[in-house]
């Protein structure tokens, strides 16, 4: 890094931070997200107990100074478990979104570029995946794949990819008619090169916007799957599962259900605000705040 670069860096960061701070909702989301991120990254340092340690002498203790969020029916410390749960949820959100983008983008890109019958049928194929009410397709897919954390993640990716295919498709259709793509074709470039070097960089902004807005929903959907018993399984540390296992006890011991429940709420809330902010930054024409 040269001297010029370092002198430039703060001002650039300052403008970015200025924009972040200028947008109140984005700022709130940003701060909350940083807290969740710190919880996830530094879980082993911040945890006060082993999240898997069972201790029947301490079961169902209310929140106190020794157990910040109380303990569950197996005497496990909820505060420590929620910290580790942040890792699971962020990992799920990230993996599912990346996988969905990786499947959806090439499909939409190729369908828009190829056009004609092939493009038409490729998009009708993705339409089949959109024909299901939300949550139903992942539920049906876990019936085939089996029930577990990774199966749920694959199921969620499969139900999310068509949206990316659709978004990229409409961009790709437009871009494939542009002069530079036509001239690239005329110059005899290979299809792969045109698709991924020339067209992709001009097609992916809406997909990224969509991805940032879907992140929270993905975490929510994954928690719901775990909650109804077809997602994460013990000993996975997952918030939806933690709420589910408390179901028989929560009327008398509210914290066992509410603590992990609020963790989901705060995380998804933060991610939604962040997603809106990213949309405003990337797409100034979008429908405001």
């Amino acid at each position: 890094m040269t001297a010029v670069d370092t002198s430039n860096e703060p001002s650039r960061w300052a403008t970015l931070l200025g924009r972040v701070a200028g947008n109140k909702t984005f700022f709130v989301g940003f701060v909350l997200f940083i807290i969740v991120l710190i919880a996830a990254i530094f879980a082993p340092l911040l945890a006060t107990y082993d999240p898997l340690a069972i201790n029947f002498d301490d079961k169902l203790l209310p929140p106190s100074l020794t157990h910040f969020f109380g303990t569950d029916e197996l005497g496990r410390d909820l505060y420590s478990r929620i910290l580790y749960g942040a890792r699971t949820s962020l990992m799920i959100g990230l993996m599912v979104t990346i996988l969905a983008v990786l499947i959806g983008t090439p499909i939409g890109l190729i369908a828009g570029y190829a056009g004609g019958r092939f493009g038409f049928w490729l998009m009708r194929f993705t339409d089949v995946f959109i024909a299901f009410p939300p949550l139903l397709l992942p539920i049906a897919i876990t019936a085939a794949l089996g029930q577990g954390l990774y199966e749920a993640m694959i199921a969620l990716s499969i139900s999310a990819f068509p949206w990316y295919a659709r978004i990229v498709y409409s961009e790709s259709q437009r871009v494939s008619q542009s002069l530079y793509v036509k001239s690239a074709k005329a110059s005899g470039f290979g299809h792969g090169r045109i698709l991924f070097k020339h067209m992709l960089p001009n097609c992916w902004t809406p997909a990224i916007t969509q991805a940032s807005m879907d992140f929270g929903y993905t975490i929510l959907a994954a928690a719901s799957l775990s909650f109804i018993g077809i997602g994460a399984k013990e000993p996975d540390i997952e918030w939806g599962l933690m709420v589910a296992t408390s179901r028989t006890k929560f009327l008398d011991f509210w914290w066992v259900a509410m603590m992990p429940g609020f963790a989901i709420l705060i995380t998804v809330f933060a991610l939604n605000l962040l997603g809106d902010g990213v949309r405003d930054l990337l797409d100034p024409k979008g429908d405001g705040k």
Partner: protein
Amino acid sequence: MFTYVLKRLGTMVLILLGVLVMTFFISRVLPGSPVEMLLGSRPTAEAVARVTEEMGLDRPLPVQFVRYMGEVIQGDFGNSLMTKRPVLTEIGERFPATLELVLCSVLLVLIVGVPLGVFAALRQNGVIDVVARSISALGVAVPTFLIAMMLQLLFAGKLRWLPLQGRIDDLVLLDHEFPSVTGLYLVDSALAGQWVAFQSAAAHLAMPTLALSLSALALIVRITRTMMIEALSEEFVTTLRAYGLSSTRVNFRYVLKAAMIPLLTVVGMTFGYLLGTSVVAEFVFDWPGIGGFIVRAITTSDFPSVMAITMLLASAYLIITFFVDMLHFAVDPRLRP
């Protein structure tokens, strides 16, 4: 117009066929063998061979698919492996419960959500707008199961106003029986004049409806508000105002009308959205609908039930979307092809 409707119907049938292929595919790669499911864990080799042949599982996949499709078209989805009864009977018994829950939620969402969105847009940054925006920001972030359990904690646990779960009090049902006409308890009990049963049904319905509605409400409020703000910024609004029309008249007669058309799509979406999330609400409240049934079917590898429910809900979703599109053309002639 007619050819467009035909084309649209054609695409719908195609997509349904795709859904059929998909459910078939899902069922055939299922890990738990359906034969084992039927015969228990240690069947004899002959029994396995017999059932495999009976179910046609030894035939090539395309043959199996054609056979499956033929049966589905005749309305035969096979027997549930869990209860050994026809899947369609199982679904028929449970669907009214789901429908009642979803319909009540749709009504609640529209009655509360649309006005809230409209008034929020009319007075941006006013009190209603702040309430509306908080609901829409929080509502999409709250897991349905969390809000459901919070309601249970408050209304069933602390206040003891509402029953914790179920669809109706069995004892009440014994004393105040009513004939099943629509399958919707609220309607049937009212038709029979059994108000005690009606009350019990309504009390049981209250929490599931609220829990199911919140996230859809958040979406509707947000979208209505955006549509309304967009419609308000149209030039015809300025013109009408310039002509001296009262703002109430402009807002509710003209602007609302313009905002309503895109809202139709949203109503269709809401239906589908609620059908999907009802699975979670039904699970929490032990609601005897198809949502709870599909969860149990999955965990017991009851693939005919899973396939049938998936198929039926997807069809319902597609048909609703189709009608909403047709409604669009009825309301807005400009959209007609």
